[in-house]
């Protein structure tokens, strides 16, 4: 029943677990991880931008003792554009106990048909870890280089929190953050959403999402795609996402079993 597993390392004695043993170990480790059951994510999710970014964060925090740990996913993601971890993210990371990325729940293409000059985003931050407080939150959206436009053309990208969305009138919006970008710019745009995410955490019913608005040099609203913003369609590894940093704000004890 015992054999040396060369892949794991000659110092480890490897024994195949019986199904009952495997189930017990799985149950115990899930309990340690604080999970009620084994998660079942969509199979295609691993190619999204958020896992790539999160893997970069993981690599930043991992010790030298775990060098092989991410090799499988590194190989999968090789060649894909990485959602680069900035020095600011590293600072947030030092202070964080948990980091979570959230997928956008709005179908970007369908939304642009309804509102051609505004892109809506929605992130469900209600299912966040218990007893943890938000220390920072960033909305990240990728801007591609626009070849066919004048490189000197500039755009203003504004992100608003939706305060009210009456069915037959304009939405009430609160400006959260703005960026001026050149048509020739290429890379991730990062918007601070710390206060808004904290509000959504405390009052999930106030989470009506975000609106992104693009204006040209003349202050005219434009389709966000005009500036190369990847809002819905486009490569999976450049899809927008929300990343939130948490810190434990209470001491938790595991119950005796």
């Amino acid at each position, binding site marked *: 029943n015992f054999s040396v597993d060369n892949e*794991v*390392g000659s*110092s*480890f*004695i490897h024994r195949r*677990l019986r199904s009952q043993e*495997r189930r017990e*170990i*799985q149950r115990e*480790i899930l309990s*340690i*991880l604080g999970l009620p059951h*084994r*998660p*079942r*994510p*969509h*199979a295609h*999710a*691993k190619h*999204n931008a*958020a*896992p790539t970014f*999160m*893997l970069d*964060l*993981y690599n930043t*925090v*991992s010790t030298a*003792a*775990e060098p*092989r*740990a*991410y*090799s*499988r*996913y590194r190989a999968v993601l090789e060649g894909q554009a990485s959602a680069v971890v900035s020095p600011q993210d590293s600072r947030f990371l030092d202070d*964080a*106990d*948990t*980091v*979570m*990325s*959230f*997928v956008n729940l709005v179908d970007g293409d369908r939304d642009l048909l309804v509102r051609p000059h505004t892109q809506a985003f929605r992130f*469900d931050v209600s*299912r966040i*870890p218990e007893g943890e407080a938000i220390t920072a939150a960033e909305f990240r959206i990728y801007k591609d280089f626009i070849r066919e436009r004048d490189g000197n053309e500039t755009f203003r990208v504004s992100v608003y929190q939706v305060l009210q969305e009456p069915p037959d009138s304009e939405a009430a919006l609160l400006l959260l953050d703005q960026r001026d970008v050149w048509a020739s710019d290429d890379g991730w745009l990062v918007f601070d959403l710390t206060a808004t995410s904290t509000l959504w955490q405390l009052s999930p019913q106030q989470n009506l999402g975000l609106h992104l608005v693009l204006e040209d040099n003349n202050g005219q609203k434009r389709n966000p795609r005009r500036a190369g913003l990847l809002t819905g369609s486009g490569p999976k590894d450049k899809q927008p996402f929300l990343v939130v940093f948490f810190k434990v704000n209470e001491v938790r004890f595991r119950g005796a079993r």
Partner: protein
Amino acid sequence: SAPGQKGRQSNRSKQQKAVQEALKAAEAGTGTYQGDFQGCKKHELYVSFRDLGWQDWIIAPEGYAAYYCEGECAFPLNSDMNATNHAIVQTLVHFINPETVPQPCCAPTQLNGISVLYFDDSSNVILKKYRNMVVRACGCH
């Protein structure tokens, strides 16, 4: 302390003799008290998330070296076993009175954390630090 009973003198002298023998053996570095004795040490134990069939939701790591502590905390404890002062006294008392006082336990004295990166049911990604997952050092408690 031991209750005063008849035959106490005889018991005490037996115990004292045993302790003296043990001390002599310890000084000589040999003797019946060392024998096949396996001291308290850190041993390899790898937890493989891949073998648990979790590669679809745990992004990293594939697994981690958790280690475990095993070995006897027997008289005489030496510095190799990273024993607490209390463990040293308990070993001696166990030696004198094995029926009443157990040997100290070989257990982790230093633990490290690991970070785990995984998907939830909604395909959100979670990076979480878990404390006390990896044994760094073992000792007699």
